């Protein structure tokens, strides 16, 4: 896999938030076509890292490169054509699903360009991918939590970026859609950096995992390399068993329950 193209590179990036939390300094690189899972306990800095990579926050030291170019110096529209970001919680809006997906096309539209049939086709395709084909005219507020999450994911897909930064994308989704969505992402050939709480789900679909603890990268590598009982105990503070899934032979983690 060493011949893959580097898409995003973080070099000695450090960011201190007003609350005192410090992320980094940390370095990593994302290669084209791979799925990366971001793991860590609450408050480890997963969302902050995704925001840094998505240019929503500016590092105080170090830099983030997108295709060898400093992220902060890219024209916002050019950046958004290559990089799509989905935050963990979506601010409330009274848009319809279709209007939301139209926003996803924003980076590809010049000011004077109207909406055309190709846009409509792209939006319909994205909605089909997340199983919302019949909900285009519904208001977002009328959808269930899972449907809303899928609509937002469809918005990210319609943005047609090479790199997707997803903050807990399978949050709110039922088991069926969790797997369907991650499978869709794998098939798409896009580069994805997504944060997860479900380690087994991450292990099943990600090529590589990044483990954060208190703003520091503890481990980077394939699920087999990263998911060791020692590291998991260190990061999540709980003993666990790591074995293989009978379905695909990938890592499976079972944490020991609290003794009662």
């Amino acid at each position: 896999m060493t011949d893959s193209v580097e898409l995003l590179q973080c070099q000695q990036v450090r960011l201190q938030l007003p609350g005192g939390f410090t992320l980094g300094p940390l370095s990593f690189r994302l290669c084209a076509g791979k799925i990366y899972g971001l793991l860590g306990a609450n408050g480890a800095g997963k969302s902050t890292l995704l925001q840094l990579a998505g240019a929503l926050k500016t590092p105080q030291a170090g830099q983030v490169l997108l295709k060898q170019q400093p992220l902060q110096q890219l024209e916002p529209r050019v950046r958004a054509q290559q990089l799509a970001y989905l935050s963990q919680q979506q601010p409330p809006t009274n848009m319809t699903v279709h209007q939301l997906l139209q926003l996803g096309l924003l980076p590809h539209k010049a000011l004077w360009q109207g909406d055309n049939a190709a846009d409509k086709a792209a939006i319909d395709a994205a909605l089909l991918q997340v199983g919302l084909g019949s909900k285009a005219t519904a208001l977002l507020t009328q959808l269930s939590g899972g449907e809303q999450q899928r609509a937002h994911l469809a918005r990210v897909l319609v943005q047609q970026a090479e790199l997707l930064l997803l903050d807990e994308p399978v949050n709110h989704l039922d088991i069926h859609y969790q797997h369907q969505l991650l499978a869709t992402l794998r098939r798409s050939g896009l580069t994805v950096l997504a944060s997860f709480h479900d380690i087994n789900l991450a292990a099943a679909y990600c090529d590589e995992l990044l483990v954060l603890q208190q703003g520091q990268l503890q481990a980077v590598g394939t699920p087999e390399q990263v998911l060791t009982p020692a590291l998991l105990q260190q990061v999540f503070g709980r003993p666990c068993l790591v074995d293989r899934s009978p379905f695909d032979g990938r890592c499976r983690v079972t944490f020991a329950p609290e003794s009662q």
Partner: protein
Amino acid sequence: MRLSLSVRCWLLLLLLPASGLAALQIGVVELPLWSLLSGQPTDALPGQVFWQLRLPRVLLAGLAGASLALCGALLQLLSRNELADPYLFGVVSGAALGATISSLLLPGLALALPVAAFAGALLAVLTVLLLAQRSNAHGMHSVSTLLLTGLAVSFCASAIASLLLYQADSFAANRIIFWLMGSLSRADWPAVSILAVSLLLTLTLCSLGRRQLAALAWSDDMAQSLGVAVKRWRLLLLLLCALLTAVVVAYCGGIGFVGLMIPHLVRLLFGTQILLLLFGSAVGGAVFLIWVDTAARTVLAPQELPLGILTALCGSLFFLLLLNRRRSPYES
């Protein structure tokens, strides 16, 4: 029974020319409108009244109403606060300060007042934007900063204006007080053309940036991740609002509540789609102010009622009604 959206849109659109024509008919002097427009020779007086007084006045009413409502809608979108109003940015007090200074220094020069009021309004808004921008850099929340800064600058400008007026003769104070109450009596063709150009510019930019506006109205982070140059767009739109309001205030004085009330009504009737909201507000504001001004110049004739009194009265009553009808989301 609810009419479909497109029918409601057409009704509103038709209301504009209908209101304009009706307002042109109503007034102290009887106008043979048809023979005036068809160019048949009549007495000189109706022609003069029509071309130099009533037509520019009705046009200015429409343009001012459209501008104020449009600015209100834009600011409510940008601040994601349904209570935002163009007058919260210190525009009126800044304009009043400018008007006061001009009225003290050049009392006889009629043109000095709108020019000075415009300069004052723009200065106040720029101060507000600059100060708000600076405190945002220190990590404060942008919307509340803007509103608080606007409040502070307003009070500061009012205080200076009051101080100057207090030192001045009582006629100057009278002039400023009545000017602040709002009136379209100084309507003329330059005012109409300046406002028309500014309004057209703002509407064009809003149409071009409708996607950016939709994203900004949703969330700053979302807009930024969608490739919108958030700061640039926000500053541009705020400046246009400031410009538009400053022009309106300079020529018409204080006309409150239009920017607050009309977008609310439009949201109730037409929903929240960006362009529908902006253009609907503009048309609705125009219709509203045309009728209010017609009332202002005829109800108590020969006296003219200050416009701001009527709009504030309508606006506040409307708001009380709205608050009464709408249950708090926390109650149910």
